[in-house]
Structures are given as structure tokens and as C-alpha cells.
């Protein structure tokens, strides 16, 4: 628990909640990132454009905070390429198959008391826990 950072976690979380509230208030949409990413790739014209702009905004927000000295102090290096590629494909495929990710199900779905989202969140948290357990403690991959 030595890396516990409750204050930045709560402030960052509140900003994420604010971002979702802004998108709902103005655009009438739920800010589920996996859905926005997929729509940005495969939808057309206006439906695609706002999604792409949202994603550009995300990159800008993270970059600005990083460049003013907040954000990551060090970037993880030397992590097995195999895990990154296979895991990434599972994240992309799984979030589309399950209609959502940490944001869509884990935050907005829970805020709307959606049964689907509660079930999905419990499942991806549990599988995430098992997956990290296997990677770190069974296969001894450092991270």
C-alpha cells in the first residue's frame, strides 16, 4: 500500500466524472472510450467526427498535464512484447464483444445502475485480478 495516492486519485476521478457529465449535458452521449474508439474507426462523417475530436482532446489533456510536470515520472520499459500484443488484442476484442470498458461499464453504467454494467464490471475486475496474479506471481514477469 506504499504507493497509495488517495488525493490525486479522487481529484482525477472527479475530472473523469466531470468530462462524462459535459459530454452528456452537451452532446447527449455516454463517454465510453471503447465505443468512441470503435465509432471513430468505423462510423461515417458527423458520427465519426465528434468521436475523433473527443479522442484528440484526450491526447491533448494528457499531454498538457504531462508537459507541465504532472503525470508519469517514469515510463515502464522492458515489459514483454508478447503480453502487450496479445493483451491489447484481448482488450480491443473483449470491450467490443462486451459492449464497454472501464469507462462505459465501470463508471457511467454504474452511475445509471445498469445491471449489464454491474455484471460486466465485476467480471472484468475479477479476470483482471486473476490475470495479474498469473503474470506476476506464477510466471514472475516484472512490472
Amino acid at each position, binding site marked *: 500500500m506504499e*504507493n497509495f*495516492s488517495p488525493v490525486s486519485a479522487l481529484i*482525477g*476521478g472527479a*475530472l*473523469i*466524472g466531470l468530462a*462524462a457529465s*459535459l*459530454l452528456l449535458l452537451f*452532446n*447527449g*452521449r455516454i463517454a465510453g*472510450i*471503447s465505443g468512441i*474508439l*470503435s465509432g471513430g*474507426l*468505423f462510423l461515417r462523417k458527423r458520427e465519426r467526427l*465528434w468521436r475523433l*475530436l*473527443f*479522442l484528440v*482532446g*484526450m*491526447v*491533448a*489533456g*494528457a*499531454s498538457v*498535464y*504531462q508537459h507541465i510536470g504532472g*503525470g*508519469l515520472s517514469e*515510463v*515502464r520499459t522492458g*515489459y514483454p512484447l508478447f503480453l*502487450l500484443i496479445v*493483451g*491489447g488484442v484481448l*482488450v480491443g*476484442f*473483449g*470491450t*467490443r464483444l462486451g*459492449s464497454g470498458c472501464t*469507462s462505459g461499464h465501470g463508471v*457511467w453504467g*454504474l452511475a445509471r445502475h445498469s*445491471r449489464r454494467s454491474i*455484471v460486466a464490471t465485476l467480471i*472484468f475486475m475479477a*479476470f*483482471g*485480478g486473476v*490475470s*495479474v*496474479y498469473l*503474470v506476476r506471481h506464477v510466471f514472475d514477469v516484472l*512490472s
Partner: protein
Amino acid sequence: MTPLLTAPLSGFVFGLGLTVSQMIDPVKVTDFLDVTGFWDPSLALVMAGALAVTLVCFRLILRRPSPLAAERFDLPTRTDIDVKLIAGAALFGTGWGMTGYCPGPAVASLGLWSFDSLVVLGSILAGVGLHQLLFQSRSG
């Protein structure tokens, strides 16, 4: 034009939140999922902080007949729990634990030029494309 201005604004605040909360650090994420190791509960508070805001704001916003910059609210309506939901969440969770990245941080990290995040984002896009190929050959 307004919805095309408010979308990047919301995205900007979202990216800021992911960075302030350190969710863009894959080590922070795997530390959270590693309940039997050096457990770091911070990310539970990220979700709690986000939920505290959305629980109140969503209720107030959805009392309006329509959003401010669009004709109507466009919200998910499904309530059924099917095999796809369960299998998808299980696959996603497995990949999340393997990489330390969910889609939001993978996108937001683009500006940080971390090799890990670039590989993961490329792989996520491949996974999304694979799903599109298998289940939705045409889209609207």
C-alpha cells in the same frame, strides 16, 4: 458546430483526469489489480471520485428534455445479460491485467510516446477491427 467543440473539451478534461489520477501508468493499474501483492487501492478511489460526480450530475442532466448541443439523449438501453457481455468482459479483464492498459489510458498515452502504450494501442485497434470483421461486416 457546438457539439464538435464540446466533444474535444470533454475529451480534454477526460485525458487530464486519467493523467492526474495516474491511471495512464500501467504499473499503477496492475498494482491495483494485484490484490495478493503490493496492493494499491488508488484506482478504486478514481472510480469512486468519478461516480460521485456522475451519480449526481447524470440525474440532474437527464431531467432535461434534451441535451444543450444535440437533438436528443442517445443512451444505451439494453438490460439483458447475455453470453457476449460475460465473455467480452472476461476477455477484456484478462487483457487489462496482461497489459495494464484499458482503452482510455492507451489512447491518452499517445502524447507520452511510451513504447508500451503504442504497442498496446495498435493491438487494441487490431482487436476492435477483428470484432468488426467477425460480427459487424457493415455499420451505420
